[in-house]
């Protein structure tokens, strides 16, 4: 509330300040010009001469010169505007000051300002800060202070590195991951984190450096999901769609369905295959079991009798949606085997496989 009082006060002062000169009677209208200037100059010379700053000759010469220029000086037009027009102008100017200024200022401020947010000087926040030790930036400051004194603390670097990464301090993250790797030795998590940080520094491009990191991470732990994901992303960025798709699908198969990473990966798969991401991923565990049971039944039925083309296509799709690339591929192979001798059916299987991203 107080802020609005202050704003109103400031506005009032400014409007009054702008209106003030309009209320003043205009002077005789003659503006200063060169004649005033040279008259002033003459007075100044006489003044200086009287104070003894100028000797006789200099002063006389200067005066002659100034007087000569005074005579030659351009007479500026003394005319002023017509009084009637001046009244109209003053009214317009008053309107601008009274309404234009407040309306423009207030509308801009309402669009950009946050009048309801109070000041938050650190002094008034000390109490709440002290109790809230979980605050991230306080913790960072503490860890940083510790690392300044103990740069050999590998765990410290390893702890702060992902925090830097999530805060967008990518250069610092690269440094922290490198230090941690150096001090703690090779681990897939740190190595893939380093790769991710390098990639972030490069504005999201998986550079050769970053890719090397991911490869190293996979060498020490082939199941590292982060490294798998970025390796696939690298292939995608390189334009190697089939490889990217294969890598994504392999990763997807190993992820729990409906988990966040799985959804991310499925989006990439969808983008690469042109098939929209499936809502089936959102199913909860119970539903998921039910679906699995249904799929298994379908599988069993088709194993017994492989003549149902639609059934095969459904099965392939089901496995693919559940993220089981291996089984989807297997289903495709079995469908092809079951449908040998039906070129049309084989075509359909191939098309579906391509759409689903099962075959390359």
């Amino acid at each position: 509330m107080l802020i609005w009082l202050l704003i109103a006060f400031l506005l009032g002062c400014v409007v009054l300040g702008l209106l003030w000169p309009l209320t003043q009677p205009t002077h005789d209208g003659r503006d200063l010009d060169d004649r005033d200037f040279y008259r002033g100059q003459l007075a100044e010379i006489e003044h200086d001469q009287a104070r003894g700053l100028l000797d006789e000759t200099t002063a006389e010469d200067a005066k002659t010169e100034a007087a000569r220029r005074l005579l030659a000086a351009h007479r500026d037009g003394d005319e002023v505007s017509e009084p009637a027009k001046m009244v109209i102008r003053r009214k317009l100017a008053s309107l601008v000051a009274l309404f234009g200024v407040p309306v423009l200022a207030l509308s801009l401020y309402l669009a950009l300002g946050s009048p309801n947010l109070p000041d938050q000087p650190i002094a008034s926040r000390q109490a709440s800060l002290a109790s809230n030790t979980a605050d991230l930036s306080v913790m960072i400051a503490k860890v940083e202070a510790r690392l300044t004194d103990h740069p050999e603390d590998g765990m410290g670097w390893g702890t702060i590195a992902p925090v830097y990464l999530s805060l967008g301090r990518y250069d610092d993250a690269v440094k922290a991951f490198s230090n941690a790797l150096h001090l703690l030795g090779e681990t897939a998590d740190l190595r893939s984190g380093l790769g991710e940080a390098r990639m972030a520094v490069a504005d999201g491009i998986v550079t050769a450096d970053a890719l090397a990191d991911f490869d190293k991470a996979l060498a020490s732990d082939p199941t590292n999901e982060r490294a798998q994901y970025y390796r696939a992303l690298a292939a995608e960025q390189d334009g190697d769609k089939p490889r990217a798709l294969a890598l994504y699908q392999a990763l997807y198969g190993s992820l729990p369905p409906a988990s966040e990473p799985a959804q991310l990966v499925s989006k990439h798969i969808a983008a690469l295959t042109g098939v929209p991401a499936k809502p089936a991923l959102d199913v909860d565990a119970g539903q998921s079991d039910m679906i699995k049971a249904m799929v298994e039944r379908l599988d069993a039925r088709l194993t017994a009798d492989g003549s149902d083309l639609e059934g095969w296509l459904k099965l392939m799709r089901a496995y693919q949606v559940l993220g089981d690339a291996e089984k989807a591929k297997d289903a495709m192979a079995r469908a092809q085997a079951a449908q040998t001798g039906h070129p049309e059916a084989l075509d359909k299987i191939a098309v579906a496989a391509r759409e689903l991203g099962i075959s390359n």
Partner: protein
Amino acid sequence: MIVEFGHFAMILAFTTALVQTVLPMWGAVARDPALAAMARYAAFLTFGLVVLAYAALTWAYISSDFSVVNVVMNSHSTKPLMYKISGVWSNHEGSMLLWVLILVVFAALVAIRGGAMPARLLASVLSVQGAIAAAFLLFVILTSNPFLRLAEIPAEGQGLNPILEDPGLAIHPPLLYLGYVGFSVAFSFAVGALVHGRIDAIWARFVRPWTLLAWIFLTLGIAMGSYWAYYELGWGGWWFWDPVENASLMPWLMGTALLHSTVVMEKREALKVWTILLSILTFSLSLLGTFLVRSGVITSVHSFASDPARGIFILGILTLFIGGGLVLFAWRAPALKQGGLFAPVSREGALVVNNLFLATSAVAVLVGTLYPLVLETLNGNKISVGAPYFNLTAVPIFVALLVFVPFGQSLAWKRGDLLAVGQRLLAAFGLAVLAMIATFSVVRGGPVAAPLGLGLGVWLIAGSASDVLYRCCRRGLPLRTMIERALGMPRSAWGTALAHAGMGITVIGISATVWGIETLAIVSPHESLAVGPYTVTLEQSFKRTGQGFREDVVRFAVKEGDQAKGTIESSKRIHTGREMPTTEAGIVTYGLGQLYASVNDTLPDGKVSIRFYWKPLVTLIWAGALVMALGGALSLADRRLRIGASAKARKAVDLQGGSKA
């Protein structure tokens, strides 16, 4: 609340600046004294509001109010108070607000002094100042608003960057801005005169002090920036022909030309149209400098293109004011009354030559600065135009101009006698040649240019001295009279002599850099190394911690012959959580030269890889700039600014009494 109040004040300042732009100009054109009278009031209001806004932002920094995005990004609660205050302008948003603050300070000063000015001229000048302020305030409000808030308040700021915590870096931008923005007054006066349709003695009298003031600040700002780069970057260089440096050099060159042409205008009412053009061009180069530094276009044309809002906005402002100014010039200048006449060989003629040389050198620098940007835009090639280009283009122009300076300084107004001046300068010339011969005989080898440059510096200093001596000393005069004459000499004459001598001092400092000695060595503990006249011995290397950093320090003992001359330290600093270690150069001044140590690496076996420089006379580079600024200040304090144009009267005295003062 204080923050929000500041935000509102800033927005309100934009609206009053708009009023200041539109209504007084209307009043000036329509000859309506009431509207014209609004100019001063609006200028004071805009000034007061921007001060409020700036104070509110400063308060947010001092009190570490982390609900303000700008404070979070650029400050930290543990920063020393001084760097919290300087932190306000050490970032883009705050520095643009400082730019506007300085602009409105100048406008308010013009308004204060405006009582003695013709009301119509004052109204149009303040209107143009208001337009510049409004444009930049809108830029700040829409694209670089420092008052944006956060609802989720972080516990700490992120702006703990100790590399930037340096007194040099804290003072350098305000000085430079005072220079850049100061030239806006000359620009406003030029546009005002064009609108007014008249340009006369009053005009010149009022515009000169502002130009001089801006020039002094810009000179100091450039010198300061150069010294900062010298001691902070650790390469031992003091000028890199970097685009950012060129951005400040160009307005300086053009502003120096303007300074000289306003002298001609004030005293002789000549060169009017040219002075108007120079005023427009000088401020245009200042705006260009702001654009180059602030739009991100220098780092890469592509980074500019990827976040174009700011760059495009400043480019728009640039186009509006430069384009508008030049169009107005083309339209109105032919109507201006031409001024006094003068013979080609005269002080005026000399100043015209000075102007041509300075303007040409500014163009040479401009081409070298913009060419890489244009090329990158056209075909994506990133090239850099460096010292070789500038050494071949701008530097020869400087040299030619400087050779010429003592002549111009000694020539009489209106009609000069070159031969007489030549005779008077004979002694100075002899001194310069002597200095050259002496250097040639002492220093064997080395580039020929260095003794020549040294001679040039001596020539400038001796030329200035000879002018002063000629004015106040005659054979047979008693010493008392001579001193009285020297004291009675106008301060602007002393200012001219000092400024030109200062240039000479800088030239000597620059020439001497080629005699600098650079040694790169790997030194074991207690091993000695010869650096020029000094011997340095690695005394110890140790670790040290300071606030927010730890460093590996190497300390060397310095000896000249057998005489111990103290120690010199250099270090590699690693700041908490920062990627790059920084090098802290060690600098010790001996006489006019400096010993400069910059450590590369401390090797595991205790050896140290280090670079040493001995830079004779290097301090003269900056000392000269200080002397130049002092000369400018003396000239600014000249009482004749109040008396006005009495040079012609002095000329008359000259003919009769043979005395110029």
